[in-house]
């Protein structure tokens, strides 16, 4: 490593375009959400413009980074910077999920029992006659207001017992996602051994498994909304269930998209060498991270 090869990029238009895209995106999102009841509102177009310009900017920005890399402008030091940067980004994602898991643990251990009159705090709540008759359990199928403001669900997504295990989608989702972590690892081994065919094949399988996961998750949501009456509006169980699994599903889509881009780069452009493939490695780290989050979800949202 010598500083002579250190590459400080030229001025770049991408950052300011990216900032502008984010501005359009959040302005559009806020106005659209505030006008959900207003059919005449056209603020959704700002949102679309934001999305389009965001994806366009990202596309050209990443294309530029890849070009610079292929032109040999990246020093080893810069490559290390990408590695550290990705690791810290994943740490920030961990903390994002931590907020939602924290909320789950808090309502399960404290808020719901207190609302039913348990513990010192609960005694206070029942002493003033609030939420009489509310019983603490998890998953909570009733709400403290007995569905006055919230719609009650008939059935939860929890473990149905061994008798129904095979019809239980989360189990299949777990199998699919855990296998995909293995296949992405096989792809990595293939790439390291210079076996591009193996790399492409296993990466393709991984992307396929990601699609299956998203499909199963969609089926599960459909079942929840159509047959169980379980919605975002079903009190705290529905809130935590859909926010945790929903954000996870969103991350699966992002991770799957990243892996699909890597696959396309390998198949159509012949990118990645056995010793030089951090783009793929970063995407696969992300994929393993998404997998670990699912294991936590499976334990704390579905099983326990």
């Amino acid at each position, binding site marked *: 490593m010598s500083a*002579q090869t250190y590459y400080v990029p*030229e001025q*770049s*238009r991408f950052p300011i375009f990216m900032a502008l895209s984010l501005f359009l995106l959040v*302005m559009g999102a806020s106005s659209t959400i505030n006008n959900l009841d207003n059919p005449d509102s056209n603020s959704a177009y700002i949102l679309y413009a934001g999305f389009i310009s965001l994806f366009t900017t990202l596309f050209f920005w990443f294309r530029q980074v890849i070009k610079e890399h292929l032109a040999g402008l990246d020093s080893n030091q810069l490559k290390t*910077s990408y590695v550290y940067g990705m690791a810290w980004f994943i740490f920030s994602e961990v903390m994002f999920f931590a*907020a939602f898991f924290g909320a789950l643990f808090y309502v399960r251990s404290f808020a719901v029992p207190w609302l039913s009159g348990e*513990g010192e705090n609960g005694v206070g709540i029942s002493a003033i006659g609030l939420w009489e008759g509310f019983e603490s359990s998890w998953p909570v199928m009733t709400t403290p207001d007995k569905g006055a403001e919230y719609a009650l669900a008939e059935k939860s997504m929890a473990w149905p017992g061994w008798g129904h295990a095979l019809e239980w989608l989360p189990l299949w989702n777990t199998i699919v996602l855990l296998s995909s972590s293995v296949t992405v690892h096989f792809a990595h081994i293939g790439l390291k051994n210079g076996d591009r065919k193996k790399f492409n094949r296993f990466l393709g399988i991984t992307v396929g498994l990601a699609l299956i996961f998203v499909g199963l998750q969609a089926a599960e949501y459909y079942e929840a909304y159509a047959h169980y009456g379980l919605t*975002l509006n079903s009190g705290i169980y529905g809130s935590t269930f859909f*926010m945790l699994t929903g954000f996870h599903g969103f991350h699966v889509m992002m991770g799957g998209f990243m892996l699909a881009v890597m696959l396309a780069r390998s198949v159509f452009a012949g990118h990645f060498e056995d010793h030089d493939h951090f783009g793929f490695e970063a995407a696969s780290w992300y994929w393993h991270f998404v997998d670990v989050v699912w294991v936590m979800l499976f334990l704390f949202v579905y099983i326990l």
Partner: protein
Amino acid sequence: MSAVIENHHDDHHHGPAKGLTRWLYTTNHKDIGTLYLWFSFAMFLIGGAMALVIRAELFQPGMQIVEPEFYNQMITLHGLIMIFGGVMPAFVGLANWLVPMMIGAPDMALPRMNNLSFWILPFAFFILLSSLFMDGGAPNFGWTFYAPLSTTYAPPSVTFFIFSVHIMGASSIMGAINVVVTIMNMRAPGVTLMKMPLFVWSWLITAYLLIAVMPVLAGAVTMMLMDIHFGTSFFNAAGGGDPVLFQHIFWFFGHPEVYIMILPAFGIVSHIIETFSRKQLFGYSSMVWAMLSIAILSFVVWAHHMFTVGLPLAAELFFMWATMLIAVPTGVKVFNWVATMFKGSLTFETPMLFAIAFVVLFTIGGLSGLMLAIVPADFQYHDTYFVVAHFHYVLVPGAIFSIMAAVYYWIPKWSGNMYDERLGKLHFWLSFIGVNVTFFPQHFIGLAGMPRRYPDYALQFADWNMVSSVGAFLFGVSQILFLFIVVKTVMGGKKATDQVWEGARGLEWTVASPAPYHTFTTPPKVD
């Protein structure tokens, strides 16, 4: 390929691009640092103007100038703008300018993302400020935006507030990742961890805190958004949630956040006191360990903001003791600063004046924090002006004085010119007097029972409120002088030497003044 590489060699000798695009498209850490610093100064003036609206209203009891609804919007925006627009970007700007120079790196590790982190901010604050003109007015629930005030009872502009917080958070996370990666990966050979300047250490720890807690804030505002618009019940007991859950999540972010706003100040003050004492800093490694302990403890003290919400007794005790424990590493730092000055050959240039004021006044703010940490006492002090006095003591003569000290200390290196020492001292004394006249009386009215966040108050608080308002206007007006001094220095003045200060140590003083557009194209030699 080699042609491209050679081209870039030439770039190092080029100066900045001409015109506006220099600032829009820049990837240079010094340009981006300058952008951050000017942005934060603009926000400081806007947030300061809001503070003056608040103090004008509180000049006398009774309603005089603004409607209570508008008053609420002012206290909310004042807090948000000063924290997310004033103090944090100022520290990021200083990190941009100084970290690469201090560790002998050519630039930040990820220069384009660096530019993105900055340019998100003007957009985010445009959204936040535009909410003033929306139906129902700007956010009016205080900077802590407790549910249900910020959910069930919030104005429609809360949606814009939520999304602007989202992109501010993205900016902070990217900025912090850049700082961590720069420090971990870009140090010149020989700059080992325990040889890093303390400002660099303080920013390494700060960046870690930022990456850990900004996503939690994003989670909190996302839950708000879902509760408001999509029927979830995270913060609504009727659905099985709990408004107190909001406070837990918010303060899990919020307490590390207050250390994010003070740790870089610790770094700055250590450098300045060392320089003007003409001695080596006392206890370097204990300074590092103290900052690390403060950062780690900051994750387990959040509920001391919530002693009166009805926590179980065990929780009250735990958070009380954990909070008091923070006084130990903080005490180590204050001791070390004083020990550095002990028997040094002190001179009192403007940066040193601000740094000494920092040590004294920050300690006052720290001690009032210790009073607030005592659970039974806090039952009395909670949400009174005593709390307002406490956190303004750590933020204004704490964080903001350290930023001003840093500007006076490094501006000769940035601009190549010395500032006007006479005006600098005048600015210091006006600020020092202004700050104390503003905030010291708030301890008294707080202990006497005046609640915070109300536009009106009982008659017995009238005298000290009047004094406080006079101080606030004095402090506010003196910042115009600061602007004048900075502009005057940038425009011209006595040329600074490379060393600038007789006792200054560190790599940034080995390069020319003003620092060349690209520093350290080859790694400097460090022993």
